Structure formats: structure tokens, C-alpha cells
């Protein structure tokens, strides 16, 4: 990761800004913490979104608007009417179309600087490394446990930062896993038994909650790209919208973690549907 002033070993990252880009990103560039060099870093960054649903929608929109130069999106679902109360990147015109097509078209309109790479396929142990390896940071907007453990493991094994978020009714959580500083398995060593935890489809979710948590994921991603501030590493942010309260709890790295602990037993991707006892349904 580059230093705060946007240089890597003294070399400025990314191409020089055009006049249009200087206008588009003027309110970023005027921030001393970003500046033209930081904006060039954003334009040179590559971020992968797992899921183009509730969390992926605001994250994609804000990352694209911020000028993150390459955004990958993994989702094999199509847009459904029941998505539209929370998945704000999609609209009526895209119902029944692949979500990744909807995302590509919307982001092209938000910011033509952004290259969108789409993966209209399930992410699995067979393709996760190939999909993730060329990106700098992975943002998780998946909505099922097998995908969550798969992406966690793949990110750790590839050494990629993993920006996580979850939703449940009126509550949300967000945090960042950096390789070597703990992982999702340190937080939850085992998934719940199938059926023990209801999904958003079963329990419901306040649509605007997706905006809060997905946008926090975008902010954390931008902070990582620019090496700014204190990311949500080793701490889990909890948001309760009914009390309008943010809290944090600590997430230590678990020395006994089978993936990132002192004596790991997981060295490659496994069968996550078997591990969780449940099939992957949709991503977001």
C-alpha cells in the first residue's frame, strides 16, 4: 500500500489528471489528505465487489463516483422487483436483466473514467483465486455464509484486504480484515447450522440500512487505497438504526484460527457449501 501522499517508493501512482478529471474530482483534490496525487491513486486502484445487491449498490456507486479506476462486480443474479427497495444501483428498466449489466451501465453513466469488469457467475472454490487475484481490495456484499467464508479464505490466502459488511433488519455491521490481523474465522469460527439464522429475505431489512453500511464499506475502501486514518481493523462497528447508535467491539486475531492462526490447517480453498451445510443462493 502506498503512503499517505500517494507515492510508492517516491513514484507517483497513476496517470496525470486531465482537465476534466481535475474538475470532476475538485472537491477530493482540495482535501489535503487526497490532493491530485491521492486522486491518481484512486484512479489506479482496483476494487472487487462481491454481490451487486443491498451493500454492493451504494458501495459501487460511491467507489465509481470517487474515481476508483477499475471496479469488478461478481453476481449471477437478475434484477427483481423485490430488490428495488434497497438495491439502489438498479431500476425498473433493468428488471429481469443480469445485475452485472445493470451495474455496468449505471457506473458508466456515473463516471466514464471507471472500467467495470463483470463476472456473471457464482464465485466458488474453482474460480475465486482467478477472479480476485488482480484486484487490490475486496468488498463483501454477499448475503450467505458459504460465500462469506469462501471470500474470507481466498482474500487471506491471496493477501488481499477484505472490507466486510452485514445487515439484519434495522442493524448493520462493518469491519476490515487485513491479512495477518485477523479474519472472519477469528470473528466467527463456525457458521450457524442451516436455518438457524434467517436471511434478509426471511427476516427483512430496512432498505436505507444498506446505504449506511455499504457507504461505510466504500469509505473504508477509499481510506485503504489512500492509506488514510484508522480503518476498522480488529474492531467491528455495530450500527443500530432504531436507537441511532454506533458502537464497536474488538476482534482480536485468534492464534488458534485454522486459517490465519499460529498453526493453520487451511492452506487452500475448501468446499464451502459442505462446510456451511447450505447451498449458495444469491450473492446480494
Amino acid at each position, binding site marked *: 500500500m502506498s503512503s499517505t501522499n500517494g507515492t510508492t517508493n517516491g513514484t507517483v501512482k497513476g496517470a496525470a489528471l486531465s482537465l476534466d478529471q481535475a474538475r470532476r474530482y475538485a472537491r477530493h483534490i482540495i482535501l489535503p489528505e487526497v490532493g491530485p496525487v491521492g486522486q491518481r491513486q484512486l484512479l489506479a486502484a482496483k476494487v472487487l465487489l462481491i*454481490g451487486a*445487491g*443491498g*451493500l*454492493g449498490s451504494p458501495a459501487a456507486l460511491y467507489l465509481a463516483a470517487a474515481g476508483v479506476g477499475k471496479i469488478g462486480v461478481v453476481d449471477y443474479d437478475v434484477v427483481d422487483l423485490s430488490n428495488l427497495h434497497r438495491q439502489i444501483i438498479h431500476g425498473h428498466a433493468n428488471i429481469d436483466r443480469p445485475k452485472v449489466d445493470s451495474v455496468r451501465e449505471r457506473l458508466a453513466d456515473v463516471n466514464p473514467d471507471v472500467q467495470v469488469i463483470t463476472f456473471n457467475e457464482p464465485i466458488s472454490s474453482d474460480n475465486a483465486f482467478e477472479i480476485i487475484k488482480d484486484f487490490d481490495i475486496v468488498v*463483501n*456484499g*454477499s*448475503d*450467505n*455464509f458459504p460465500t*462469506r467464508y469462501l471470500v474470507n479464505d481466498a482474500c487471506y490466502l491471496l493477501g488481499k484486504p477484505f472490507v466486510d*459488511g*452485514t*445487515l*439484519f*433488519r*434495522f*442493524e448493520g*455491521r462493518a469491519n476490515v480484515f487485513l491479512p495477518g490481523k485477523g479474519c472472519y474465522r477469528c*470473528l*466467527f*469460527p*463456525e*457458521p*450457524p447450522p442451516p436455518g*438457524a*439464522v*434467517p*436471511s*434478509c429475505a426471511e*427476516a427483512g*431489512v430496512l432498505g436505507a440500512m444498506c446505504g449506511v453500511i455499504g457507504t461505510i464499506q466504500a469509505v473504508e475502501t477509499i481510506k485503504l487505497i489512500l492509506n488514510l486514518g484508522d480503518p476498522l481493523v480488529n474492531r*467491528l462497528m*455495530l450500527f443500530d438504526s*432504531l*436507537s441511532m447508535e454506533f*458502537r*464497536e*467491539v*474488538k*476482534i*482480536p486475531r*485468534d492464534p488458534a484460527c485454522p486459517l490465519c492462526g499460529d498453526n493453520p490447517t487451511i492452506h487452500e480453498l475448501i468446499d464451502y457449501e459442505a462446510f456451511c451445510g447450505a447451498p449458495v443462493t444469491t*450473492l*446480494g
Partner: protein
Amino acid sequence: MANVRVPAMLRPTVGGERSVAAAGTTLRELILNVDERHPGFAGQLLEPTGEQRRFVNIYVNDEDIRYLQGLETPLDESDVVSILPAVAGG
């Protein structure tokens, strides 16, 4: 009486309350105290063997009890206990 913050997923087991006060000098005592008034509560957090369920985290203030003394972590009246089941919604 320590305060237990109950996540949305478990609120049906405590009559919809967002937090409950409960007595106990250890976390295990506190959980069983809540369970006396709200039967079924302990079963959400503990396995039938009495061990903590691996997909439900419990925090005393902001510390994960797995890094304290587990269910035998001592409590005082100013402590806040938070329960976090794994969720995957996105």
C-alpha cells in the same frame, strides 16, 4: 445487575426488549438468570452441553469473552454484555 444488550435476532426470546438487566457474578450466571425469566434465551447462546455456541459471540463491554474467561468471566454491575450472532445479510 449488569445490562444485556439483545440483538434483533434474539429479541423475540426476551419479549421484544432491546436490553434486559440481569443478576449474576459470572456471565454464565447472568445468562441463566435471564433464562429464568425468558425461557429459551440460554438455548440461543449455549449448546446443550453448556458450551458457548461457536456462531454466537458474547462481549463484556467491548471484549470477546473467548479472550477473557469465557462463560466464567466475572461481571460487575457496570458491565454491559453484548450478544452478536453471526448474520450474513447483504
